[in-house]
């Protein structure tokens, strides 16, 4: 019996990284659900797919590229180019389906060109795709400097708003209940197709044969007569297709196009693939694991949003630490495999390698955990009291509705002499708060039930206004972005009156579309307003 279990384990050892990722994703979600009752709502789970559909689609293509031992940095650029070009063509009155088709072809052409450079000109994948990214991003601004809104396109509206209800968790007659969106379904379908291609076709086997062993496998594959160069071009072409598809999913999600969208997304995509258990050297890994990599990414973001007191940059730190852990596990596993191989052969003298590696990783891991726990302890300390009292009412209010923007009230306040009107809606607790800041330093907040007031020195208001203006509030850099917030996201509206100018910019967190400086401004304003009792 024990022997059978042992063979089972040793036979399925190659699945350990994937299994670890899946286990981590599920346990992270379970922990979240235990701490934050709001996360027990199944819709939060389905939102993982909804909000990260573009990431999943792009990560699937990236997995194949990484399996061949290459890398593609151009995905974010192609995604941005797709959003801008699609928005521009739709504005010209093109049919939505035709636009999507054109975009997919465009992505494939870009991918094919980069692939040819890599395969036939022997340009480093890193360099070739870097140039591809710059090219695509540059092209975005040739098309348009500003964000282009996608309006009255029937196809995009249908694709974006159709709710695919989950059987058993929804009411098909009333069209209510838990749902996913079409891009999420497309992502999952693509996953299935690519899994088939990777594991059951000749093309897929060639991909696995090319990658790994520091490029030596590529030579072996070539000598075996496999179509190495053609496969490489095809893989980059396919990734171009995936990037374009991801760009379409993104533009359906945010219903606009801009050259700065998806900035840095290539890193998120690569991180998701690595966390999914694919080796960056290529040749080892599973497309299926990428799904869990993307899910870990989404869950981290969700947890941080639910916590409410952690800032968005914690996502990056957590992802970095998770990557370290995963790479450590992978490295230890491959060391073990190498040792076994060596033991089978001439007998290995380098037994100390693994122990040293374990010591290194153990040491590094302990340091990281200690530092993180110290920081986390300090960060989380103050709001813990609130959070525990706060999460109880949320349990019942799983069906809370997103509050509409109190536009008239905000306009009236601005008319009355308020220099900053700041509204925050939504979030896990469905808050709806509106603040007005007056030049004399008076700050009034209101969440529909309670009112709070605070007095700050007038100079502080002046400085805040000057700071906001310096962030380019009244320039084109600060543009409106909007999509329906996910259940745990906040919607923001900020009106600023300064030097005779007035401008309102709105945005939703949890997306990738709003300009970075917008969040800087929001955090500045957040720092000055008093807290309402119902929020964290």
């Amino acid at each position, binding site marked *: 019996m024990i022997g059978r279990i042992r063979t089972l384990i040793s036979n399925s050892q190659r699945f350990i990284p994937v299994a670890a990722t899946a286990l981590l994703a599920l346990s992270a979600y379970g922990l979240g659900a235990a701490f934050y009752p709001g996360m027990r709502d199944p819709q939060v789970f389905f939102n993982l797919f909804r909000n990260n559909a573009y990431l999943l689609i792009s990560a699937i293509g990236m997995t194949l590229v990484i399996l061949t031992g290459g*890398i593609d*940095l151009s995905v974010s650029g192609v995604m941005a180019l797709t959003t801008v070009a699609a928005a521009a063509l739709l504005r010209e009155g093109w049919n939505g389906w035709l636009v999507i088709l054109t975009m997919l072809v465009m992505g494939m052409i870009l991918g094919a060109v980069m692939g040819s*450079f890599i395969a*036939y*000109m*022997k*340009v*480093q994948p*890193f*360099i*070739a795709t*870097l*140039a*591809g*990214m*710059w*090219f695509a*991003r*540059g*092209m*975005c*601004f*040739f098309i348009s*400097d500003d964000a282009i809104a996608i309006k009255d396109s029937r196809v995009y509206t249908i694709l974006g708003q159709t709710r695919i209800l989950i059987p058993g968790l929804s009411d098909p007659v009333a069209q209510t209940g838990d749902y996913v969106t079409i891009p999420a379904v497309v992502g999952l379908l693509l996953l299935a197709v690519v899994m088939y291609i990777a594991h059951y076709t000749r093309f897929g086997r060639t991909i696995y044969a090319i990658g790994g062993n520091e490029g030596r496998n590529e030579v072996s594959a070539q000598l075996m007569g496999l179509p190495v160069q053609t496969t490489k071009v095809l893989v980059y072409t396919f990734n171009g297709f995936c990037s374009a598809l991801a760009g379409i999913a993104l533009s359906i999600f945010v219903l606009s196009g801009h*050259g700065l969208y998806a900035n*840095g997304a290539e*890193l998120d995509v*690569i*991180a998701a693939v*690595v966390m999914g258990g694919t080796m*960056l*050297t290529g040749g080892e890994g599973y497309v299926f694991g990428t799904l869990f990599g993307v899910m870990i990414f989404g869950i981290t973001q969700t947890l941080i949003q639910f916590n409410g007191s952690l*800032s968005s*940059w*914690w*996502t*990056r*730190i957590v*992802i*970095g*630490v998770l*990557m*370290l852990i995963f*790479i*450590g596990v992978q*490295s230890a596993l491959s*060391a073990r495999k190498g040792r076994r191989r060596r033991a089978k052969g001439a007998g290995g003298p380098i037994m100390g390698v693994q122990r*040293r*590696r374990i010591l*290194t*990783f153990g040491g*590094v891991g302990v340091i990281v955990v200690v530092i993180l726990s110290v*920081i986390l302890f300090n960060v989380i300390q103050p709001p813990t009291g609130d959070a525990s009292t706060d999460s109880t009412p949320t349990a019942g209010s799983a069906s809370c509705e997103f509050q509409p923007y109190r536009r008239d009230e905000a306009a009236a306040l601005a008319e009355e002499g308020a220099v900053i009107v700041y509204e925050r809606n939504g979030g896990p607790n469905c808050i709806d708060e509106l603040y007005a800041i007056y030049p004399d330093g008076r700050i009034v907040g209101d969440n529909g039930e309670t009112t709070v007031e605070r007095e700050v020195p007038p100079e502080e208001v002046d400085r805040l206004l000057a700071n906001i203006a310096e962030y380019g509030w009244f320039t084109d850099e600060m543009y409106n972005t909007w999509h329906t917030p996910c259940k745990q996201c906040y919607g923001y509206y900020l009106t600023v009156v300064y030097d005779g100018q007035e401008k309102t910019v709105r945005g939703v967190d949890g997306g990738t579309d709003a300009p*970075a400086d917008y969040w*800087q401004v929001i*955090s*500045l304003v957040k720092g000055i307003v008093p807290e309402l009792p119902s929020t964290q």
Partner: protein
Amino acid sequence: MSTFKSGFSLRKVTESRLFFPFVALALILLFDLIAVPGFFRISTRDGNLYGNLIDIVRNASTVSLLAIGMTLVIATGGVDLSVGAVMAIAASVAALLMNPYVLATELPPNIQEMMNDPYFTYQPLWVVILAALAVSIICGLWNGILVAYGRIQPMVATLILMTAGRGIAQLITNGVRIQIFYEPYAFIGQGWIILPFSLYLVAIVFAVAWLLTRKTAIGMFIESVGTNARSSFFSGIGEKKIKLLAYTFCGLTAGIAGLVASSNIKTSDAFNLGQTKELDAILAVVIGGTLMSGGRFSLLASIVGAWVIQAITTSMYAVGVPAFALQAIKAVVVIFVILLYSEQVKNFVQKVTAQKKEA
């Protein structure tokens, strides 16, 4: 460039590591000579030199600094993707020590008035600089340990710090862009002593790196590790220590670059500072003729590579190409330059010329 030729045979010149970067630079400057009248004009103000050429080398100083460290790392067969994030971390540490108002704890009550004084700093300048550099050295050590002792592939190992580093930088500054009011600090990036001060910094770092690699055996060891790590190990070279040294040095140069960049804009912007600078630095090294697979390297060629990148940018602005179009043009130039090095293209050209001779 003409002095370069004298005393050498033509063949020796074209085979030199510096040949292609200088040709690329010369081509771009030739373009400026034709397309932009007065591009080469250099004026003096208060005894300091100003002009487009000075601008190019001054604006390239950040990438030059990064490129020096990156050259050593790439020569060992690795790559450091985290330099941009390390720049942000170093700048954040420096800014926090000079202007810690974001922490809002244990500050003197008259902090506001003190901050209006351009010579106010919370910690003396040397503490600021040493602390920032110490932090960046720790970042470099971290990368080095992961690569050399953890045996993780360099791209992945440094990707960790690249992802987490920007988060850490934002954590340090609490997500706020800290403005730097302290005038002496601004001198690092904005000061001039006949030539821009940052240029002297580049020269010092270059001199240190050059002495370290060309006057000791370290340079040879680095090339040996990059060419074949395994046989270097067997021939008794402390392969791991060499790698550790390269990554640590790269972290240090990234820290210096972070100081220059933040004092240039008098702000520490944890989110944007050094964003995509790692790509520029790698590109500079590649233009400088060092192979991504490691091996032989030339520090000077990498710096020329940084100048090439900046020369493209400056001359495009001078011609009037809008900023947004720059990236696309940069991409085309990059591909062109890389193809110049490509073996395939060289072979192709050789084949064509050989056919001509036959005919």
